[in-house]
Every structure is written in C-alpha cells, then in structure tokens.
C-alpha cells in the first residue's frame, strides 16, 4: 500500500473544462504529474497554458472536471485551498514581489504567518535560499531597487521558503530583458537537478530540452501533443506542433 502511494500522481487533472463567459479556455484537459517530474507547457499565446497552471493552485476556478493536488480535491473549501496553496509554489511573469517589504521580509512573510515558524528560523532559511539564488547581499533592499532578473530570482526564493512540494512557473522569463534570462534559467535548472517537481509554462526551448521530462503542447485550450522533449523537438507528431516549432526556432 505504501508503495502505491509513492507512485500515485502528485497532481491529477481529469476532464478539466473552464469557460470565461461563453468562451471556453480549457477543453477536456487530462494530466498527471508525478513527484520529481519536470514538465514544460508550451503553445501559442491564448492557448490556455497559463490558465491551466493557475487552476492548479486555484487562482482560477474551473467549472467542470477534477483537480487533485497532494491527494486532496480542489473544491470551494477555502481552508483546503489555502492548505494546497502553501504546498504549491508559484512564480509569476511579473514577479509580484511585495514592494513595501524588504527582500528578507518578502521571504519570511509566508513561513512566519502561514507555517507559523519563528522569525529567527524563517530568516535563517530565507538567507539560505537567497544564497542559493545568489542574491544574499541584497537582503535588506526593497524590490524596486533590484533588476528584473534579480527580482525574479527573489520571487523563486520566496516560493522555496515555503518548502513547496511542487513549483509552478508562469512564463518566468517573458518579462525580462534578454541578458537577464540566463540567470533565472540557471536557478531553475539547478532546482530541477535537485529533484523539485516543476510545471513550467515557457517559450525557452533550450530549458525544455535540457531538463524537461515531458513537453506538453497546447493550442486552443486543448492538449495537442504530449511527448518527451527529444521526440517533440526532433519529430513532432502533430501538424500544429510542427507549425509552432517552426515559428519559434
């Protein structure tokens, strides 16, 4: 029995449908993610990929289908949602750091108020993660004083401080100047190598090739192709994936 629990998918999405008014953004999505898996979601803009991962921590509500995270269903139960959100880290396109707090306070806020650990302990762990994203010397500054790449690395560290079981990345490098993309990707690759479960919405195909175990290609709210990165890039099965790849590479 114990063994079975380990191989059960950490995130399980079944028959997911979502509408914005009359417009259907997600159509019959089925997806399972195991612990330690790294999945890249790509597709043209408006294909629903961001909406999909935002459903996983219920920043978006779905109308039909079922999402299970860490063995509990996402329902209207707000306490349950808060519990799941604490286990699911999220990194946004626009960083969304808290501008009125120092970097250090940005990192300790979640652990202190949600995990209820002591301020001192939270600060130690925050410094550990700031070291990890190579930005410890900025701890006392405010987000507005940092570059985009630095802010995004802080945002990643902020999520890590909650010791999440899975990390969601919503186009983490799209808002960055080109020369800053690499410093963020390096941190993400390092995370991947350490065995973090990750779902990454990105157009960075280099990242996908290097660390992803699966690539999911979405278009018009549907999963069109699900493949390992090697096959996906070398030999895409679907006409639309082929078209998409030819456009971005």
């Amino acid at each position, binding site marked *: 029995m114990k063994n079975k629990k380990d191989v059960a998918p950490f995130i399980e999405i079944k028959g997911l449908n979502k509408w914005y008014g009359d417009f259907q953004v997600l159509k019959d999505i089925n997806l399972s993610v195991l612990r330690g898996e790294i999945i890249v979601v790509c597709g043209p803009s408006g294909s629903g990929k961001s909406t999909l991962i935002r459903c996983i921590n219920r920043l978006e509500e779905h109308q039909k289908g079922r999402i299970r995270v860490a063995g509990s269903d996402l329902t209207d139960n707000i306490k349950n949602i808060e519990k799941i959100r604490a286990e*699911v880290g*999220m990194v946004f396109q*626009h960083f*969304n750091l*808290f501008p*009125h707090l120092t970097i250090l306070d940005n990192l300790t806020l979640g652990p202190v108020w949600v995990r209820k650990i002591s301020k001192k302990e939270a600060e130690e762990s925050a410094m550990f993660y700031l070291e990890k994203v190579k930005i410890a010397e900025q701890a006392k500054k405010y987000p*507005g004083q940092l570059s985009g790449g630095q802010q995004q690395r802080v945002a990643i560290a902020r999520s890590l401080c909650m010791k999440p079981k899975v990390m969601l990345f919503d186009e983490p490098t799209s808002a960055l100047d080109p020369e800053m993309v690499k410093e963020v990707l390096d941190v993400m690759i390092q995370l991947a190598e350490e065995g973090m479960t990750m779902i990454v919405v990105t157009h960075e195909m280099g990242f996908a090739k290097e660390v992803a175990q699966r690539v999911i290609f979405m278009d018009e709210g549907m999963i069109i192709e699900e493949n390992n990165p090697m096959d996906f890039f070398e030999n895409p099965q679907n006409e639309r994936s082929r078209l998409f790849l030819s456009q971005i590479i």
Partner: protein
Amino acid sequence: MKWIKKNLFSTPFNSALTVITLFILFKTIPPFIKWAFIESSWFAESEVCKSGSGACWSVITYNLRFIIFGFYPYEEHWRPFVSMIILFTLLYFTRNKKYRSKALLYFWIAGLPVMGIFMKGGIFGLVSVNSANWGGLPLTLLLAVFGLAAAYPLGIMLALGRLSKMPAIKALCIVYIELIRGVPLISLLFMSSIIFPLFLPEGVTIDKIIRAQVAIILFTAAYVAEVVRGGLQGMNKGQYEAAASLGLNYYLSMRLIILPQALKIVIPPTVSILISAFKDTSLVVIIALYDILKTSQTVLSNPKWMGFSPEVYIFIAVLYFAGCFSMSSFSRKLEEELDREK
C-alpha cells in the same frame, strides 16, 4: 535684480499683474499690521478698547478661560487642561517615528480612559462634572480625535465590505455608504439629537456628546470608505495573487500585503477628509453643544465685548489652522517615511 526682471516683468502683461498685486498688498497688509499689532491693545478693559482704533485682543485674554473651557466649573479647569496636556504629549510622540512602538500604543490605550476620568470625575475624589457642562477646546478635540480615530478603521472595514464577494455584506455596505453620503452632516446631527431619542425606551438616555460623536464617526467613515476603496481597486491584481499563492488567508493578505500599500496610496485624499471632518466638528453648535466656536460666540454676545468679532474669529481661525496644518504636515512626513521603497 535679474531674477526680478525675469520672473516679474518678463512681458507687459506680467508687469501689469506685478504692479497690481503690489498695489493690493500695499493697500491691505500695512493697515492690517497696524490694526493687529501696532495700535492694538492686549490687556486693556473693554471700555478703553472701544475708544482705541486698533484690534482689541483683550477680548481673548480676558475671556480665554471661558473660550477654552466653556461652562466647565471654574475651579476644575485644571482637569480638562491636564487632559489636553496628555493628549498633546501623546500626539507629539506619535508624530516622531523614533517613538512609534508598542509601548506608545499602550500609552494611548491607558491615556484615553485617564483623560476621560479627568474630564468626568466622580472617582478618586474628583468632583463629578456632568458632560452637559463640557465645552470649548476640550470638546472640539474630543469630538475630533475620537471621531477620526474611530472613523478610519470603520471606513476601512466598509471599503473591504463593499468589495466583498459576499452579496449580503456588499449590499449592506453600499446602502450604508450611499445613504450616509446622501445626507448632510447637519441632518445626521439633528437626527442623533432629536429623532434618535424618540426611539429609546422611557427613562433611557444616551449622552448628547456621545450621540454627536457617533454621528460624526458614521459620517466620516462613509467618506473614508470610498477613498480606501479607490486605493484597493488601484492595487495590482498580481499582489492579491502573490499573497494568495503563499497560502495567506483573506485577513492576513489584507493586513500584511494589500492594506499597507493601498492605504499609503490614499494618504493625501484621506487626510483631506480627516481635515474637513475636524472642521465639521464645529457643526455641533446646532445641537447646542458648546464647542470652541460656540463658546467664542457666547463671549461676543456679552454686551461688554460686543463688536469684537474680528478679533475672536481670527483667534479661532488660528486655532483651527494650527490643528489642520499639523495634520497635513504629519501626513506629508508619513508619506516621506513610507516612500523609501522607491
């Protein structure tokens, strides 16, 4: 010289404006100074005053204690005086960032009842003073300080309620805000003093000052609510999402993330509301409370001091200005302190 030429006489039109302005200033300022300072009498009897041509400030100096304390028993004037000293001391320390700490908060919590005891008496050997006799500056300050201190959090709650997803709470808050904003403060004060007691059971009375105080709080809160709502709606949606994605509940994300930022944005309009609420406390004269404006008018109705209204109203204006100006300068200071993250 060059500066004058460049800034005051650059074009014929500007030159004309400069000349006209100088002329008006010349016609008004020297006579005012002459009236207010040179030919004025400060401590003369009213008869002497009336024969003089300058300002008669003795209307203030002779009646200062009545203007400040109203009908509060003469021998007990030291009590409201001490209360005001406590209040000003607390305000002074609150103004300075260095002293803003938990301890100061406790001092406030302890200070308010102490002030109340000094004013009301009845225990510790202090003679009880009926609140009907409270008046003058202490009354104005009481209405203002309690009014603003209570209206601000109430306004924030109303703003949050108005943006709530729960339809009942939302509707309630909208109705409240629109109803209160739809009537003038005067009518609220009338209602609180005349209509409200009609609904109370026989024998139950609520102090007139408290009723006026509640009316001021309810009125100001509705305006604060709308300003705060503006701040909340101006917040970036990403801040709500980032707070939620850390697992913070509604209360924590409001308290730690959203409100600190939203309230900071709306400091200038909030202070405008608080300043006008401070000045609006003078409307309590219409329900026969003797705030500082009313006590001054009472002095003027004394035949001995009739006709000195300019002096008295200038004095009152200076007092109000001091209050309002310190509020706005405090808000500017607060904004600078909070502006560090930019």
